[in-house]
């Protein structure tokens, strides 16, 4: 069974849900997509495949963090710094 990895998957889901609160298109939009994405792979049993999917999830976490940072940086730069163009 994939029981030892179940905890990892749940942790990943919780982290993504937490990150999704600030999603620009809305937390609900993000949560629906997240749920369908996780439910699509609910019947996986091969530990290798599950590890790959978890790695993909962690990649998405990094992408979201980068998205939030860039959004904030660009907004502040636009507001506080004169553009020379």
């Amino acid at each position, binding site marked *: 069974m994939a029981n030892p990895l179940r905890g990892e998957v749940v*942790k990943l889901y*919780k*982290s993504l849900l*937490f*990150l999704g609160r600030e999603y620009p298109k809305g937390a609900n939009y993000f949560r629906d997509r997240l749920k369908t994405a996780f439910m699509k792979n609910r019947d996986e049993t091969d530990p290798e495949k599950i590890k790959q999917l978890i790695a993909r999830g962690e990649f998405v*976490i990094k992408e979201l*963090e980068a998205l*939030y*940072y860039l*959004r*904030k*940086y660009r*907004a*502040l*730069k636009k*507001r*506080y*710094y*004169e553009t020379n163009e």
Partner: protein
Amino acid sequence: FWSSRCLIGFGPGRFRYTPPTTTFTGITVKPVRLVLRLVLKSLDECSRSAEKKSENMARVLVGVKRVIDYAVKIRVKPDRTGVVTDGVKHSMNPFCEIAVEEAVKLKEKKIVKEVVAVSCGPQQVQETIRTALAMGADRGIHVEVSGKEYESLGPLQVSKIMAALAKKEEAKIVILGKQAIDDDCNQTGQMTAALLDWPQGTFASEVTVDGDKLKVVREIDGGLETIKISLPAVLTADLRLNTPRYATLPNIMKAKKKKIANVKPGDLGVDLTSRVEVLRSQQGATGSSDAREGAVLGRWTNRRNGPNWAFETVAFLAPIPMATGPIQNHDPRPCCV
């Protein structure tokens, strides 16, 4: 009684010891006690001298402010006394996030030993301190200010609090964000340095340690300026200082164990009376700058928050020097107070 049965050492060897005869009790016990005392004393001295020699005794104080989130559209209250803050999403000031990240980076480089996050305000400010703890601060200090006092809390009061705390916590470096995105004052860092009589490195876009001094690259109009300031010092973080890390869920869970101390401004001996009174706020129209009416000066607030911003008319309750000069619409650093 116990002197004749005193145990030397612990563990299996203790039963091998045979107690001395009573005639020698007086002589055998004294050396044991003496030896123990000497050992403990030398250990104590060792640790104390290690502490003195260690350069990692430095502590960093970071000020964080809870402001309306940068992405939220600002609305002025219907009675025009301020900006709507109830039910509006709040978060940590972006420049304060950069300040916290810099402090944590200094700790990771082992230049400082401890990072203390400080915030002033009502109970809700604790979530901002928790975010700072999740980003890597070691402990937090919550200075309780609520109600009327919180509404009139300005850079002068906050800098008095920060100065008092820096002295109390014996901090070597105080790092603040360069300005808050709600009042855009850009004064707290400078005032704190003045009150402590410490050198300041404001608008820092790069900070390096050079011996026992700090080399700070500042972003100024027209370029970059590199200065060398001695410790202790006050730093103000600019946008390009670093990339603040996101406070992820596992880090927030870990941060729940960290302590947040509650302090009252009275305990620090700080007087919070404000010399500034907000007269009215109004939704700003682009391009209006008719503000001056004698001692009444207009002040931009939340000005940089996109197309909706608020314009506060503010009166001074005590004579203070005013920065004179034409008010420019696009001056990022407002020239009042």
